[in-house]
């Protein structure tokens, strides 16, 4: 599975908990409250464990987390 699919599934299952099962990769994750600050922490922990990478604190910024697509593009750099 690629990053996009894995992230989309994780966000739907663990963070949205059924509130929006039709989430798409380009959907805005931040301006409609899909993920809160606790959700960001969980998501970063998941990424680090699942993809075996270390996301530096200075990269955990809204520009990198706007959508699943944007986040996948960021992760492709590793």
């Amino acid at each position, binding site marked *: 599975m690629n990053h996009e699919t894995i992230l989309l599934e994780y966000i739907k299952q663990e963070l949205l908990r059924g509130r929006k099962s039709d989430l798409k990769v380009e959907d805005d994750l931040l301006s409609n409250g899909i993920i809160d600050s606790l959700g*960001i922490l969980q998501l970063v922990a998941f990424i680090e464990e699942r993809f075996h990478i270390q996301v530096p604190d200075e990269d955990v910024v809204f520009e990198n987390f706007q959508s699943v697509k944007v986040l996948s593009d960021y992760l492709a750099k590793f």
Partner: protein
Amino acid sequence: MLFLLPQAIDHAARNCPEREAVRFAGQGLSYVELTQRANGLAHILREHGARRGDRVGIFMNKSLDTAVALYGIMKAGCAYVPLDPFAPVARIAYVMRDCGIRHLVTTDLKLEQTNLLAEDTGELHYLIGVTEQEGFTCLSWETVYAAKIDAAPEVALTEQDLAYILYTSGSTGTPKGIMHTHRSGLSFALWAAETYGLVPHDRVSNHAPLHFDLSTFDFFATAVAGATTVIIPEAITKFPASLAKLMQDEQISVWYSVPFALIQLLERASLEKGDLSALRWVLFAGEVFPTKHLRHLLAALPQARFSNLYGPTETNVCTYYHVTALPEDSDEPIPIGKPCANLEALIVDAEDNVVAPGTPGELLMRGGVVMLGYWGRPDLNERGFFRRKMFGGHYEHLFYRTGDLVEQMPDGNLKYLGRKDRQIKTRGYRVELDEVEVALLSHEGVEEAAVFPVPDGQGSNLIEAAVTAKEGITLTEELLINHVAVRLPSYAVPAKVRVLATFPRTSTGKINRRELQAQAIAEAEARLSG
């Protein structure tokens, strides 16, 4: 004479017309612009039937328009009701029905949810900030801003008129509306502006959502001082590194948030590396600040002063404590301090008798900052206040019962001990555990439910729950979480729901919540240490 909240911006518009009143995402409105726009909105609301004391909803993500909405609604003589833009539709619709909202100030971006809301709220007729929507009278923001109007509509108001209603978790399963007047809001704003020495060149953060009472400091204390409120977009509040950059770029001089936001900044934003030299006050409220984190924060921001503000939404803020050096060898929590000016505190026992200093008791408060009461809830208003007979029974003083247990220390400061009831804080948000239980019990397969807090290892709580199923029904954690997620705000949704065959019982046959909580804490500790 300043006796209504929007008069604060009118004064500033006369005294320093060009000074920025609010900033958002690099753009700003001067006090003159803010006043003219708010006047425009007030006229439009009046022209469309809004009258003194009417409740007008605000339903939008933060923007410069949000500030216009706050003041425009109050200038029309109405009370603003901030609706959590991210809460489930069912909850928002409940709030709108409860206080009878006919006018909603919103944006085109929220139309999808507004349409869902409308199905559940028959009284809603006017959408302000919306270009076009069938079934509603719509007025776009362009229309609101087309006329630059120097004077607000003439509405005879007193300081006792309603200014805003903030909804908070209610133990019966539905949120309750806390009514504040111009007097209660302004009493707090005037005190805060003076106590923290706010001056026109201050740049004050607005981190909290509008439906959270910390926001009244950010807007109203700032306006009283003719200073600038820097509204932080919701998206940025989630990212400590982005937040630290904004604090630096915007030269924030006064910061106000819950401790959780500051702890995140401390742990994930390398505060000491940035240039936060403009920051002179760091204020926090909403929850106890864990001392070990506070010690690090003091060290990371040596140029700033720190103050702990305490008070339930019902009282704005009622005590405060300026943090001086913390002891190196003790993690004893800092006190909540002493009552603000113009407030009288009582500490009473279970029979409402005043206790001796040093004895624990419930904190009661009387003074200008106290709310008018709960909207439409005479039962809560009866229970929520204590009538203290004065002068041989010729007169009564009305004290608000905070439900918080405190004791007075030898130096006069109050120490917070806990709650009398089942209200908890999770990352600064106030949640009635009973409300979460009611939400779980509303699932037809749930026989019994118990909800309890579990420490999160970050100085705050997570909410966990346990349920038993009705005979013949199979329940799963996922099913139950999905069920409550459409009823409760996300911070009140349990992080974990255990489905048990039976509950542990106390000797009197009640659910043993303490036992369930102890098991959950043991599991959480095992997870953290593992």
